């Protein structure tokens, strides 16, 4: 079979470019933008239907942000100040994977979190718990060739918010990852096992699918604890997978 190299046609597939496309996630994987239980969605969710965006060049590519963005101590949130922060030292590790279980290597992972008492080092956070002068709660790292990442931090505390009467956020770490393509960009939150606050948290519960919700909860990992030093939690992040491309099918045919 011959492939036309280019033409002046009106779409990238017709112009001879063979592009991957990314599978859409099953219904219920992500929270609806209109989630009344989380009050801040009320004035911020679009009311018009979303328009389907086919995966073209801009969507199947994405920023590949590597080591150049990292400072030396960005992956150890306990060593960014002369003194150590208060709290339970933990190791957080896991893999960045695509929907087919393939690792996403050399990819930037960014995290931010509250301190051990649940207070963020942010001017708007004024709940009565002291700021820890030795804890910024901000980290960055990059996945290795097997898609693994790891950082050292302290376990964040739960904190109150004003969403509803006596509302508390379960302890969590905010994660931002890029993957390999614009379609894979993801910001999520990592939770801790067996948190009694899950049942009353509209953000955690905004994810409709029960199994999908469980994927946001890290696993206590005894094997990675460091004796007399740190507990450990494992958290894998799974991004959208690719559809099989026409190019791959062609190869199989030959």
């Amino acid at each position, binding site marked *: 079979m011959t492939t036309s190299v*280019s033409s002046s*046609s*009106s*779409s*990238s597939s*017709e*112009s001879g*470019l063979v*592009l*991957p496309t990314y599978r859409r*996630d*099953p219904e219920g*994987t*992500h*929270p*609806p933008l209109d*989630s009344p239980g*989380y009050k801040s*969605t*009320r*004035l*911020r*969710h*679009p*009311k*018009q239907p*979303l*328009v389907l*965006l*086919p*995966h*073209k*060049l*801009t*969507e199947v*590519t*994405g*920023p*590949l942000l590597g080591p150049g963005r990292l400072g030396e101590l960005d992956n150890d949130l306990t060593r960014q100040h002369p003194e150590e922060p208060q709290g339970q030292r933990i190791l957080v590790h896991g893999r960045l994977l695509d*929907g087919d279980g393939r690792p996403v290597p050399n990819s930037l992972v960014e*995290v*931010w979190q509250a301190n051990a008492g649940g207070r963020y080092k*942010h001017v*708007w956070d004024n709940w009565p718990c002291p700021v820890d002068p030795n804890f910024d*709660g*901000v980290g960055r790292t990059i996945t290795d060739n097997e898609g693994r990442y790891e950082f050292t931090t302290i376990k964040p505390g739960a904190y109150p918010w004003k969403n509803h009467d006596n509302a508390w956020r379960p302890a969590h770490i*905010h994660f*931002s990852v890029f993957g390999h393509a614009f379609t894979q*960009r*993801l*910001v999520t*939150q990592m939770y801790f096992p067996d948190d009694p606050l899950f049942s009353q948290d509209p*953000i955690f519960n905004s994810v409709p699918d029960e199994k*999908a*919700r469980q*994927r*946001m909860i890290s696993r206590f990992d005894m094997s990675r604890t460091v004796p007399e030093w740190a507990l450990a939690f494992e958290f894998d*992040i*799974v*991004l959208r997978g690719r559809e099989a491309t026409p190019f791959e099918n062609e190869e199989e045919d030959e």
Partner: protein
Amino acid sequence: MSTPSQTVGPYLSLGLPWDDGPTVAGADTPGAVWIRGVVYDGAGAPVPDGLIETWQADPHGRFDHPDDPRGAQPGFRGFGRCPTDDEGAYGIRTVLPGALPGEAPHIDVSVFARGLLHRVVTRIYFPEHAEANAADPVLTSVPAQRRDTLIATRTEDGYRFDVRLQGEGETVFFDV
């Protein structure tokens, strides 16, 4: 099975902004322009706890990425990131992307904010390319009366592109 999305929450400005995030192109780059705008909520109030990310081709319409089948063109980051300020405003300094095969020049935009449980995605098109815009397959798939929400307007130092999350003049958002 994918990990679900969650909101960036109110304190995203701790973790996400970079010093060089808003500058995709240096000030002395020929053709450098500022794209500025304000993010508004459904009551018309500015959103001060949001973040805009941009992703675009270089001026020749190419990407520094291995999945550009025409070959990666090293050197252009193509990615911008700017938190909104207390007035809901953001600004990205960049150069205009070139046209892509079968597509008018455009920039993909992700909007993150407290109250957004998932990013919303839109596109910036440019008013100079009326003819290419009229033939663009994505732009023409948008209801005609809403297309202008995707077209930036000229300003003194570049372009203006406001984002209205909800209500009157709501920006067109895409299901990626």
